[in-house]
């Protein structure tokens, strides 16, 4: 990563105002959003929005022409262009033709996208942003850090300083007073403006209408007071029917600001009279700027379903640490990364795409039902395809692709790490440039004997009727073989023999998450052969990331590469794959496993691993099993927020990973439980390592280790 980008991350992380404001907001947002959606079937609502937006995206040209026809019939002037320069020139021409001296604008991301203000100001025209947040950043000479709350990164003291300069009077940081000052300052600007510029939240083809959603009332003034109104509308805002506005207006305010509806919604379908009796000149510019290309892309078409609510920013564990400016100048956060890659160019997203930890929190709340992390992965894949991998990365993956060499290296690492482990199970400090990796977190020492060696010595009962193939994954195999042993113990008690095919290798997730799909495909093919060689009832894994690879991503990787050779086997493997807790829950439900009677094991808290909860939807089985075993569940705050591990993420961006981990440790400790369980060895590595350096007396264990001590073979068996 470029030094400049790393420096911007560093600045953001050390900006206490920023991280404080965003942290508080993200906590409140989650609660308020849930309240705003009370009694609403969110899945049905977003299904409807995804459908209507997707349908519109598949016929953009037709809808744009229909919009033009219907709007022009009402007296609106419609200008369609794909070129941002033509948008700027058109607006300047309208301004010049009408002798415009002063412009008022309501918030428009489309005009931010084409840097309109600077262009008009250079032409000698006064441009005033009127949305309070936009005006603040205009005065500060900054760019918006959030699509909905452009000035969320600034404190009231900073705003007071800006306003004081503007009104030439020393103002205190009293917020209502500052808002009054803004009202007073903006009024004359509204009243003298000869042109109003707005964006639009929705454009309806059937009626040639645009819809504007605001809270402050500035859009009403911008569209009412000046004699000319120009709306700059990205064509992704097009919908077919007037009735389509209802579902969008139901979701947009709830998702954006947790409101049932914003204070104001204006639906403009044609020119209206001015206060002097003349008719308003209404111009609507339908701007493409690569949106059609996006809509034509089989994968990125989905991004056209965005309604610009910014909820993907609000729930993002990274955004709340670094804020928007790290992402660039216009669109920020998850969807911003995708839009930047298209509206700007793929290369512009090279660094910011790396900020995504792939936790999937945004995908869960997106009202357009966009797989944002999936599309960011696709950006990674295309970047690697276009530009190739970095040399260091390339050599790592060439090793990963050679199982024997990879495993030999991991064994060698066990010996090499010894000086740092100092006889414990942890590496607490690494020297020099590697020190960041152990900043706030100890790393596990590589096990002296990997599971693949341990397993051969396990004496499994003879004559077990069922067979499960165990896919260990690198962490259990080489760092935590005891988790594998625990799994064998449990399944043996249920009458299942565990088979460990030696040919299994890395699941390919690290390669895939770095955009190296060819490497991931090779890993997939190797594993498919190894895991299907032995006939078995289940393929079980105690690592959710590996489970997701076996269950979903092998198929997805082959599909996106257009490779069909291993697809049928990949599907066969997926059908057999099951995560550890879901399998054990099933065995308990079937009466094949039981728990020791009357155990009172005390309090436990549970950390949801991202892939287990959001992809495998298996957040309940481990909780139920632990409670059945005799633990009292004390839920932690934000139990399903990422621990900051994210595979190689914590190696690439340790400065972001570390504060996310600290938050998680804090939330765990706050429950008072002496034990925290989780289903992912990656999370164990991150959280156990963090707890080790923190020194708090909290044990960090994989569910499999805990259950192995508590489950018994059912007496009903045999």
């Amino acid at each position, binding site marked *: 990563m470029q030094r400049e980008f790393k420096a911007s991350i560093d600045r953001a992380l050390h900006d206490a105002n920023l991280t404080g404001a965003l942290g508080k907001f993200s906590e409140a947002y989650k609660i308020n959003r849930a309240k705003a959606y009370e009694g609403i079937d969110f899945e049905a609502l977003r299904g409807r929005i995804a459908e209507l937006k997707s349908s519109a995206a598949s016929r953009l040209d037709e809808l744009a022409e229909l919009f033009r026809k219907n709007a022009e019939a009402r007296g609106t002037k419609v200008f369609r262009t794909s070129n941002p320069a033509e948008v700027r020139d058109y607006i300047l021409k309208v301004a010049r033709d009408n002798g415009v001296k002063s412009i008022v604008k309501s918030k428009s991301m489309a005009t931010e996208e084409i840097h309109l203000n600077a262009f008009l100001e250079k032409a000698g025209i006064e441009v005033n942003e009127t949305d309070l947040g936009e005006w603040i950043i205009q005065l500060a000479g900054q760019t918006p850090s959030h699509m909905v709350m452009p000035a969320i990164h600034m404190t009231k003291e900073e705003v007071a300083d800006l306003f004081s300069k503007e009104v030439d009077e020393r103002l205190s940081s009293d917020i209502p007073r500052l808002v009054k000052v803004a009202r007073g300052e903006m009024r004359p600007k509204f009243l003298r403006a000869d042109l109003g510029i707005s964006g639009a939240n929705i454009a309806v083809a059937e009626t040639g209408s645009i819809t504007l959603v605001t809270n402050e*009332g*500035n859009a009403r003034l911008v569209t*009412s007071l000046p004699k000319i109104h120009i709306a700059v509308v990205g064509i992704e805002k097009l919908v077919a029917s007037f009735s389509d506005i209802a579902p969008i207006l139901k979701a947009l305010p709830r998702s954006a600001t947790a409101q049932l*509806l914003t204070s104001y919604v204006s*639906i403009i379908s044609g020119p209206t009279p001015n206060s002097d009796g003349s008719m308003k000149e209404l111009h609507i510019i339908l701007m493409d700027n690569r949106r059609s290309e996006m809509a034509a892309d089989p994968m990125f078409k989905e991004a056209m379903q965005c309604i610009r609510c910014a909820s993907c920013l609000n729930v993002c564990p990274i955004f709340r640490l670094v804020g928007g400016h790290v992402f660039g100048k216009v669109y920020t956060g998850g969807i911003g990364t995708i839009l930047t890659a298209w509206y700007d160019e793929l290369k512009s997203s090279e660094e910011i795409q790396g900020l995504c930890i792939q936790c999937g929190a945004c995908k869960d709340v997106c009202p357009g039902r966009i797989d944002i992390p999936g599309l960011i992965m696709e950006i990674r894949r295309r970047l690697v395809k276009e530009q190739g991998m970095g040399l260091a990365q390339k050599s790592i993956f060439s090793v990963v692709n050679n199982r024997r060499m990879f495993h030999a290296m991991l064994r060698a690492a066990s010996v090499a790490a010894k000086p740092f482990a100092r006889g414990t199970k942890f590496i607490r400090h690494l020297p020099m440039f590697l020190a960041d990796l152990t900043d706030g977190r100890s790393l596990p020492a590589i096990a002296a004997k990997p599971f693949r060696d341990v397993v051969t010595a396990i004496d499994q009962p003879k004559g077990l009727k069922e067979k499960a193939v165990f896919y260990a994954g690198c962490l259990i195999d080489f760092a935590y073989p005891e988790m594998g042993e625990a799994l064998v113990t449990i399944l043996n008690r249920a009458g299942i023999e565990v088979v460990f095919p030696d040919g299994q290798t890395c699941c390919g997730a690290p390669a895939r998450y770095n955009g190296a799909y060819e490497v991931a495909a090779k890993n997939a093919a190797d594993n498919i052969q190894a895991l299907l060689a032995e006939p078995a009832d289940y393929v079980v894994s105690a690592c959710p990331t590996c489970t997701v690879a076996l269950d979903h991503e092998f198929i997805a990787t082959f599909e996106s590469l257009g490779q069909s050779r291993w697809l049928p086997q990949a599907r066969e493997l997926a059908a057999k794959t099951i995560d550890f807790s879901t399998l054990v829950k099933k065995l308990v439900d079937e009466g094949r496993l039981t728990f020791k009677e009357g155990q009172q094991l005390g309090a436990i808290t549970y950390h949801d691993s991202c892939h287990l909860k959001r992809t495998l939807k298996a957040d309940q089985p481990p909780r139920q099993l632990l409670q059945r075993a005799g633990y009292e569940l004390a839920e932690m705050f934000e139990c399903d927020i990422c621990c900051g591990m994210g595979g190689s993420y914590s190696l690439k961006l340790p400065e972001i990973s570390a504060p996310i981990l600290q938050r998680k440790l804090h939330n765990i400790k706050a429950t008072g439980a002496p034990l925290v369980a989780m289903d992912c060895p990656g999370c164990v590595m991150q959280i156990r390592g963090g707890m080790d350096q923190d020194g708090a007396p909290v044990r960090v264990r994989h569910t499999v280790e805990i259950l192995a001590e508590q489950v018994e073979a059912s007496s009903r068996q045999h």
Partner: protein
Amino acid sequence: MYEQFKARAEGVSAEVHRFATAAEALAFLVGFLENEGVADQAGRSGVFAACPFLEHVDRSRLAAIPGLAFEVTRERAAAAKVGISQVDWALADTGTLVQDATAIDKRLVSTLPAIHVALIETGALRPDMPSWLADVRPEQTNYIAMITGPSRTADIERVLTIGVHGPERLVIVFIDRMEGEN
């Protein structure tokens, strides 16, 4: 539906009143304007946009209030403390008022003054937006305005502040029977 509307609208800081007849609403309005000290001077005047309500009541009682103008201009609206207009629909599930605001004076009186008083017939209540969509004719209405509570912002440190560019108070007056006994 009225109770749901009232709860939702009050939830976003609107004030909600209800009267059986236009005459009772008129009496409230006159009292309200007096109480707010509406007078013939900049910053204290009132503007009233043309509407059916004015056809059903004794206008002389309103005309007697100094500083209350019925000819709405931009200058008068900008100088007014109170703006009054009638709206066409109300949506119960969000506490929203909906108006055909094609006429500029309706927008001037509801955007520029500090207080907006919105009059509405109780029968114009609809359960929600989809049911309202069935009533509206966008092809005949160039400017539809929806209003849910007063103007608000949270752009400084996410602190909710009422009254930015639009009114800081929204007073909603329901009238069960607009016609009849004056």
